[in-house]
C-alpha cells in the first residue's frame, strides 16, 4: 500500500527556517560534524568556512594524550568502512591549550567528545574539560562505546546501571552539559537512554560505530591490526534510524543527536523524521570535506520542495502506513470474484 505524497505546497528556499533546538541549545540549522571525522576542525579550513556548520564534535579527548593503534587502522567494506584508530588524541591539557582557542573563535556549537580508560578517568576527563566552561565548550559528548578500549569498557555502553553511575559522576564533575553517545552494540537502547537521562545527561548521540571485522584471505589475517573495528557509513544508516526511532518513541522529550551514514539532505530529513533534533555527518567528510554545508544546502532545497517550513514541524513525525482494507474471501461490494 503506497501512502499518498503529502500534498503540502512547496516553499521558496528562503522561506525555510532551518533553525532548531537541542535541549538548551539553539542551532542555526541541524547539521554538525561527527567526532573522529572532523579532527580538531582546522584541517578543514582550506576547504570551506567551518563556521557554516551548526556545530562540531571534536576527536575524542582523554585525560592524557593517547598514541593510537598499530596499523592497518582502516579498511573499506560494502558502502561503509571499518576503523580502529584507537582513540588517538592530544589529551585534555593540550586540547584546552592548543585546540580550544581556535575552535572557540568560530562561534559555532562546540561539542567536545571525551572518554576515559576506566571510570575514574572518565570523571577526571570531565573535570579537566570543565576548564573550558565559559570558554566556548557547549557540550561534553561522553563516548561510552569504545570498542577499542580493553578493560571492561564494554559494560559502560551496554549495562544501563553502569552507564547511569558513570554519567552521574561525570555530570557532577563539570558545569558543562553532558550528552551521552550511546553504543549501538547495546541490546536495549531505550533503557540505556533512560538510564543516562535520569543521571543528568541533557540528551543522547546515536549511533556510534558498530563493531565489525574483515579478513584478508591471502594473508589469513584480519584487515585491522586490532582484529575488530567500528563500522560506519551508509551501510549502517538503517540500523541508526531504527535505534533513533526506538529511543524517540520511548522518550519523546529527550533530545537526540542522530548520526550514521548521513551523506545527503534526504538522509538528514530521514533522521529528523525518525526523531533526531540535530545530526552529525561523519564518514562522508572523508570523501567530501565540505559534506556538512553541502548536506545542509540539500536539506533546505528538499524541505522547500516538500513544503516543510521548520525542522520542528517534522521532528519524529513519521506515522504508520494506512491499514489495508480488511481481507475477506469475497470482495465487499461489486460482483463476485470470477478469475478470468
Amino acid at each position, binding site marked *: 500500500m503506497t501512502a499518498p505524497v503529502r500534498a503540502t505546497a512547496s516553499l521558496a528556499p528562503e522561506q525555510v527556517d532551518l533553525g532548531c533546538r537541542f535541549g538548551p541549545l539553539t542551532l542555526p540549522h541541524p547539521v554538525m560534524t561527527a567526532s573522529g571525522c572532523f579532527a580538531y576542525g582546522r584541517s578543514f579550513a582550506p576547504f570551506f568556512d567551518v563556521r557554516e556548520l551548526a556545530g562540531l564534535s571534536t576527536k575524542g579527548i582523554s585525560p592524557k594524550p593517547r598514541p593510537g593503534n598499530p596499523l592497518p587502522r582502516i579498511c573499506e567494506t560494502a558502502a561503509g568502512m571499518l576503523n580502529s584508530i584507537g582513540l588517538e588524541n592530544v589529551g585534555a591539557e593540550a586540547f584546552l591549550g592548543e585546540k580550544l582557542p581556535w575552535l572557540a573563535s568560530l562561534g559555532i556549537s562546540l561539542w567536545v567528545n571525551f572518554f576515559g580508560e576506566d571510570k575514574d578517568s572518565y570523571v577526571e576527563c570531565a573535570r579537566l574539560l570543565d576548564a573550558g566552561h565559559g570558554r566556548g565548550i557547549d557540550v561534553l559528548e561522553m563516548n561510552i562505546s569504545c570498542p577499542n578500549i580493553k578493560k571492561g569498557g564494554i559494560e559502560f555502553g551496554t549495562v544501563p546501571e553502569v552507564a547511569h553511575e558513570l554519567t552521574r559522576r561525570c555530570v557532577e564533575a563539570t558545569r558543562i552539559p553532558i550528552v551521552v553517545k550511546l553504543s549501538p552494540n547495546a541490546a536495549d537502547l531505550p533503557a540505556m537512554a533512560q538510564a543516562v537521562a535520569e543521571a543528568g545527561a541533557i540528551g543522547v548521540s546515536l549511533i556510534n560505530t558498530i563493531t565489525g571485522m574483515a579478513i584478508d584471505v591471502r594473508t589469513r589475517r584480519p584487515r585491522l591490526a586490532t582484529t575488530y573495528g567500528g563500522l560506519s557509513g551508509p551501510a549502517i544508516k538503517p540500523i541508526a534510524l531504527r535505534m533513533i526511532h526506538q529511543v524517540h518513541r520511548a522518550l519523546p522529550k529527550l533530545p537526540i543527536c542522530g548520526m550514521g551514514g548521513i551523506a545527503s539532505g534526504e538522509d538528514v530529513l530521514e533522521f529528523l523524521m525518525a526523531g533526531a533534533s540535530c545530526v552529525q555527518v561523519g564518514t562522508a567528510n572523508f570523501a567530501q570535506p565540505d559534506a556538512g554545508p553541502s548536506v545542509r544546502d540539500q536539506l533546505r532545497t528538499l524541505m522547500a520542495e516538500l513544503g516543510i517550513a521548520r525542522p520542528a514541524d517534522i521532528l519524529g513525525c513519521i506515522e504508520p502506513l494506512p491499514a489495508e482494507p480488511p481481507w475477506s474471501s469475497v470482495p465487499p461490494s461489486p*460482483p463476485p470474484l470470477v478469475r478470468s
Partner: protein
Amino acid sequence: MTTPSQFQARVVGHEPLRGGYFLLELQSRPDAADPAPLAGVVPGQFVMLRGEWGRDPINPRAFSVLDADASGRFRVLLKAYGRGTGRLCAMDEGERVTVTGPLGRGHFAPPTPAGPVQLLVAGGVGLPPLHLQARRAAAAGLARRVELFYGGRNADDLVLLSDFEGWGVSMALSTEDGSVGDTGFVTVPLARRLARAEAEGAPVEILACGPTPMLKAVRHLGLAHRVPTFLCLEEEMACGFGVCLGCAVPVYGERPYAYCCSDGPVFDAREVRWP
C-alpha cells in the same frame, strides 16, 4: 509459458526519447543454450535487469518487455527514476546486463474478433505491456479491437505514438497540463468511452498499466461500470520469481495476499484489495 532463465545480454541500442524516456535494446548472448530466451514473451511479462555495478544497489530491477524477436533482441522502455534506472539509462552500447526472464504469469489475453473491444489504458512507464498488446493485435489483423488511452503530465510524457498510428490503433490522449488531448487524467477520456459503450451496449474491457494512483482510479471506474478490468501492477521486487515474498499484492479470495511477480503482474481488478 516459457520457463525463465538467467542470461547475459549486451546493450546494442540506447535511444533517448523525449520526456526523459529511453529505449534500451539488448541482445542476448548468441552462443547461449537458448539464443532467444524471450521469444515467447506475452504482454505483461517482464524481465529483471542488473548491470555490472558492484554491490549497490544489490537487487535487479523489473522492466516490462516492450518487444522481443527470435534473434535474441529485445527492448525495454525506461525513465531515470532512482538508483537502478539511473544506471541503466546511463549505459553505453556494448555494456553487459544480466537478465532474468521471462517472468510473470498473469498476463493480458489477446483480443478476439467477436469479443469485447479492449481499452488499453497506459500511463508513464506503464506503456510497454499495452504497446506489445497493440502490436500483437495489429499483427493478428485485430487493430480495430483495441483502443489506446494514454495519459501523461504533458506532451513530452507521451512517447511511441507513431507506432500505434502505424498499426492503425485509435488513440485517446490526455495531459495534466492540457497540452495534448483531454486536460486532466487518462480517466477523463476513459470515462467518456465507458459511457458510450454503456449507451451503445457494446461490450468492452479494460487493460491498464501505469502508476498506482492511476490504476486505483481506473479500477474504481471499471468496477463502477461493471466492465471487466485487468490491472498490470508494479510492486517493489527483490527476486521477480516468487521466492522473496516481497512483492505481495493484497487480494480478496482464498488467501489475503497474492504475488505480483508469480501470480501477476496482471490481476483482475475485482480481486485486488485496494481502498
